[in-house]
């Protein structure tokens, strides 16, 4: 089991200029913000289930950037069909990292379907995202970095992590229009 906060920070340390990072509602947004403020981040704080389609639209419109989505198992489970859409309208620059703590930590750590019988790697594979794999310890860091920056996507990595609550780290703004305009300014320049 991986301790997600330092792991996300490690992935985002010394990030390259061609990386843009999106996060789904829940702990993922606080995680990416904890790695330091960056105009190239856009964090969802609502619209649960929409982070995967958003990342797909972004990846499609910016083929020269590498798009990295961090999201939770709960957010992913809400829009499972989006995996099929990603698979069938492929983009080679998208990596989805599901921080799978097998629970809805943000709302009090109730177990999700992945605590039961469901397996997001298998669902991703069955949806047609063939480059899907699960990591359970930090030794796979290099492999993940290679997927994010080099491999042909779309890819989905299930990172099995501890279900512990971590301190909230707020984004630059809670106002979506401020966040998105700031993010878009990182793309124009």
């Amino acid at each position: 089991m991986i301790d997600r906060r330092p792991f996300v920070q490690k992935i985002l340390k010394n990030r390259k200029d061609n990386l843009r990072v999106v996060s789904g509602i829940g702990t993922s947004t606080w995680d990416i913000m904890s790695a330091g403020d960056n105009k190239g981040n856009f964090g969802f704080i609502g619209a649960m289930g929409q982070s995967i389609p958003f990342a797909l639209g972004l990846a499609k419109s910016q083929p020269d950037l590498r798009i990295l989505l961090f999201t939770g198992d709960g957010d992913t489970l809400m829009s499972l069909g989006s995996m099929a859409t990603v698979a069938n309208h492929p983009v080679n620059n998208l990596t989805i990292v599901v921080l799978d703590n097998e629970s809805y930590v943000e709302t009090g750590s109730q177990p999700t379907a992945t605590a039961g019988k469901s397996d997001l790697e298998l669902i991703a594979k069955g949806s047609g995202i063939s480059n899907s794999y699960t990591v359970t310890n930090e030794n796979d860091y290099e492999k993940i970095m290679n997927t994010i920056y080099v491999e042909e996507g779309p890819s989905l990595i299930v990172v099995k992590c501890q279900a512990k609550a971590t301190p909230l780290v707020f984004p630059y703004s809670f106002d979506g229009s401020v966040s998105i305009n700031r993010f878009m300014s990182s793309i124009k320049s």
Partner: protein
Amino acid sequence: MTGINKDWRNDIYAVFKDLNITMVSHVPDAGHTPLINLCEKDNEIDVVTLTTEQDGVGLSCGAYAGGRKSALLMQSSGVGNCINALALPNICRIPFLTIVSMRGEWGEFIPWQVPMGLGTPKVLEAMDIKVFRADYKDEVGSTVDAAARFAFNTNRSAAVLLSQKMIGAKQFKNG
């Protein structure tokens, strides 16, 4: 602005070309099929078939963040699938355009289409979406053009309801 073509779907397509809308997502509805076919034939337009209409909201917003304009095509039942997702363009002030083929309102055969047919304008308005409506073929082009400009010029969400009166209500036959 667009001329009036024989098939009003061509008028919608002409607006897409005029305003540089290069991504069109949908869960198919028969009323949209000729437009989907036109878009499929166009190499400059990416057509994305969704598994649920709500994903078209996120997709459209992500595409816009990356600098591309898009439109979501769906039937009125699909509007019900989108409600929470519509918070995204709303709170981010991302222009969002959807074109809705209406069912359950004019000579409808299938009773199951009626609840969302009746609910569609109310649900959209409840989510602060500016609702436009085209009842006649010769107003489709100008209405879609107006809705698209409203959305992209004012950074808000707009929906065009294409009335069933215009699309036509299929009468199903048993056997």
